[in-house]
């Protein structure tokens, strides 16, 4: 078979540049397989070779979307691959968004792309129409099962082989419908499904109803000087020492901490427990995530009625959607009881 070229996209961590302190690294490339790319190569068909790896910091990519995209596009044009493999990103949100964008750029260049993500990664919802996203576990522990599926699909795409439906190939649904011939006509299939359902047997729908969970915007506040404003954050700001031991990732709880009488959050009193971004800046000045100093001044100026005397916090780092929803529902119920009408929610 004709030799095919594969290019891999990785973040700074998997690209072996460094941890969160290197998340601001701009795109760079090397003409070989790096990190997970080495394992991927072993899972590619023999005629497919990884000819290059593009590495970019997750922070840089998301904060400089245009510059990063332009650089990645240029690198892809130079490598001219037959397929692009991005990640896997598991449940890392910024990495997933970057991998998805790389898939979109490849799509625009007419190159097919594959990534691997946990279904709750925001990159899935944002970019699934542009690339094939293999369903993975939520952490790098799932690397071993992700690479064979990604390698197999990438090989097929590079060689122009037909791609089967999501359940067969292991990728997440792209919302694309293909016409196929069935043995039975629609009415018969519908009755079969209905009978299976009535009998309590397992069945697979032919068309899952898309679930759009949208909330109507709340009415605008007419006079903030009469309103209590609360701060909620997913940025993991906690009292120094993290008394409730909120986890650095996949947080199993949230905290509620008093700011009564405080004009500012000091570095001596507060820090971040978040393990998904470089903590240096938040630890130096926690107001950079929970802006108590600015809100206190606005309270004194009468711009807001009152700053709620507690802030709520959790770590939004690989935290499941179900848990985030549960924490926020509890927090919101409490805020309603306390008469809070406005919330500033900060995320890192």
């Amino acid at each position: 078979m004709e030799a095919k070229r594969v290019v891999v996209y990785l973040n700074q961590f998997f690209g072996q540049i460094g941890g969160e302190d290197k998340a601001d690294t701009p795109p760079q490339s090397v003409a070989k397989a790096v990190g997970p790319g080495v394992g991927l190569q072993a899972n590619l068909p023999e005629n497919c070779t990884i000819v290059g790896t593009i590495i970019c910091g997750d922070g840089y990519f998301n904060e400089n979307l245009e510059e990063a995209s332009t650089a990645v596009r240029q690198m892809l044009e130079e490598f001219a691959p037959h397929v692009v493999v991005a990640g896997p990103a598991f449940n890392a949100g910024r990495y997933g968004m970057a991998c998805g964008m790389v898939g979109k750029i490849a799509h625009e260049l007419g190159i097919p792309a594959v990534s691997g993500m946990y279904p709750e990664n925001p990159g899935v919802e944002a970019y699934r129409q542009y690339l094939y996203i293999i369903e993975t576990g939520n952490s790098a522990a799932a690397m071993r099962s992700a690479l064979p599926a990604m390698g197999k699909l990438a090989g097929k795409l590079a060689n122009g082989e037909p791609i089967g439906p999501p359940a067969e190939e292991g990728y997440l649904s792209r919302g694309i419908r293909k016409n196929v011939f069935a043995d039975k006509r629609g009415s018969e299939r519908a009755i079969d499904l209905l009978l299976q359902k009535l009998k309590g047997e397992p069945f697979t729908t032919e068309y899952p109803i898309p679930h759009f969970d949208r909330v109507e915007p709340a009415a605008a506040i007419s006079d903030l000087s009469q309103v209590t404003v609360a701060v909620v954050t997913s940025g993991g700001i906690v009292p120094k020492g993290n008394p409730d031991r909120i986890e650095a990732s996949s947080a199993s709880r949230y905290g509620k901490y008093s700011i009564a009488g405080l004009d500012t959050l000091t570095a001596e009193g507060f820090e971040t427990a978040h393990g998904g971004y470089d903590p240096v800046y938040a630890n130096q000045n926690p107001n950079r995530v929970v802006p108590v100093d600015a809100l206190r001044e606005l309270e004194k100026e009468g711009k807001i009625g009152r700053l709620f005397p507690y802030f709520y916090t959790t770590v939004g780092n690989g935290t499941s959607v179900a848990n985030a929803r549960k924490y926020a529902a509890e927090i919101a119920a409490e805020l309603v009881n306390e008469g809070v009408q406005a919330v500033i929610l900060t995320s890192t």
Partner: protein
Amino acid sequence: MVKEIERKGIAVVHVCTVTPISLTVGANRIVPAVAIPHPLGNPKLNPQEEFTLRKKLVEKALQALTTPVSEQHVFES
């Protein structure tokens, strides 16, 4: 989290750097922040300048809360 708070009828503004994620999860009032590790600050500025920047961002967030929206809106600077 934004959605669950809004679901209870509380006006909420999401201050974050990666606005595409915020749009994906369904926030309605979104104010773009400075950077992922310091959304409401900039370590390159001197403390007074940085405080001014933060206060402006918070005021912008408050302004978003007083602005009627009928669908998702990113309050660009």
